[in-house]
């Protein structure tokens, strides 16, 4: 199969490593990793496929497609042309969410979400203290009331009872 979209001449002057070369090779590596993991599972036969059969086929497929993406990606944008202006913020968001996930079952839902919102709206976005406290407090208590109290979802409660 060919990839019509990738055949188009790219408007960007093509120098350096191509983005598709990189992403294609990452897919090949992923396929290799899956094949390696898949060794543990019996493959079986075409008539009686075991637990490893379909993953093996898929991993091989992913490897082939990845290879094609890499090979045909000659005219894609150079890797260096991909800008990451929001990269730092993206990492901060992911780290903060992870921290919130870790804290959730230890200090309870309301406290976690309050701290989480204060961090984003107050520290990152530098909004004035009053709206920060109002939004954070209102959100954490309000959502707990609706989901926890009204809908009876057992949300985590901290050691202090809230």
């Amino acid at each position: 199969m060919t990839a019509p979209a990738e055949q188009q001449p790219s408007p960007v002057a093509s120098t350096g490593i191509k983005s598709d070369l990189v992403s294609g090779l990452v897919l090949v590596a992923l396929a290799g990793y899956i094949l390696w993991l898949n060794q543990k599972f019996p493959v079986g036969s075409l008539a009686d496929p075991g637990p490893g059969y379909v993953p093996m086929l898929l991993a091989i497929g992913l490897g082939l497609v990845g290879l094609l993406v890499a090979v045909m990606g000659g005219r894609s944008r150079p890797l260096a042309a991909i800008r990451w202006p929001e990269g730092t913020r993206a990492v901060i968001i992911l780290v903060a969410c992870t921290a919130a996930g870790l804290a959730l079952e230890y200090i309870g839902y309301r406290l976690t979400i309050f701290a989480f919102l204060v961090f984003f709206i107050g520290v990152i976005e530098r909004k004035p203290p009053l709206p920060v406290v109002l939004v954070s407090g209102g959100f954490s208590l309000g959502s707990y009331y609706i989901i926890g109290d009204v809908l009876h979802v057992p949300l985590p409660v901290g050691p202090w009872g809230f």
Partner: protein
Amino acid sequence: MKLKHITFAVFGALAAAGVHAQDAFPSRGVTMIVPFPPGGVADTTGRPTAAIMEKYLKQTVTITNRPGAGGAVGNAAVANAKPDGYTMLMGLSSVSVIPEADKLFNRKPAYTLEQLDPIALISADPMILVVHPSLPVKTVKEVIALAKKNDGELSFSSSGVYGALHMPMEMFMHAAKIKLRHVPTTGGGPAITQLLGGHVTMTAGGPAAISPHVKAGKLRTIVSWGDDRHPNYPDVPTFKESGYDITYYIWAGLFVPHGTPESVTKVLRDAVRKGVADPEFKSQMTKINSPIKYMDAPDFQKYWDADAKRLAAVVKIVGKVGK
């Protein structure tokens, strides 16, 4: 920066307040973990049980569904919970199968049976073998004869490998020395659907689940895995009567993490004992078509041990599928 300091100060104060004196059990709400999604047997048994225990514990009993991995997620959550009696498990018979299957596959076990202490058995129901009505068989003997004639071409559906519908069928196949094709599905409902559509030949079904289809003539009962005849199916013989010494019950029982103090388990056991005798509970259980089979901890422990041993043996016989 200032904000951080305030937060820490608040945390500190709260931590100090968190250490409170130990009161008589239960001093706060109790959680009952149901390792299956809402609507399943464990859930429909757990809800009336929780409601009635609330009445006698004089504290709220909240149900938390922790479904996943055929019950392993919820079972493991209770097995590894703090043994203070505030976390209970409404476990099904699959509780004993999961660690065995883990052993078979050399997996790090999610939990072991030693990590759970029984409180009480709540209900138990035998499985019943049903076939598609187009099949020209009415008794076990005929089923076996047909299976032998069509060497290995008859099939049965189940709720998944080592699941509650698979285990009794394996017992049957082993006892009758027959071979059937196994078609696992994603649950009890889909397993019956496969049979109703005539895609498979037979399945093991819970008495409540098959009842409307049997009444409508869409399924035919053959034999039950019970010790005695089922009160709702007096015409269906048992395997024991037919000369095969196999029994299989789906049961639901209450567990706490191992190491829960006796003073605490006693309170819970008392609450269940009073609860199961309550007419309110009885009528609820009749409505969901689930027979109460109450056993207090010591009897339940014996029952559980015997059941676990039997199931472990079956798991070993089945071995790894698809090796």
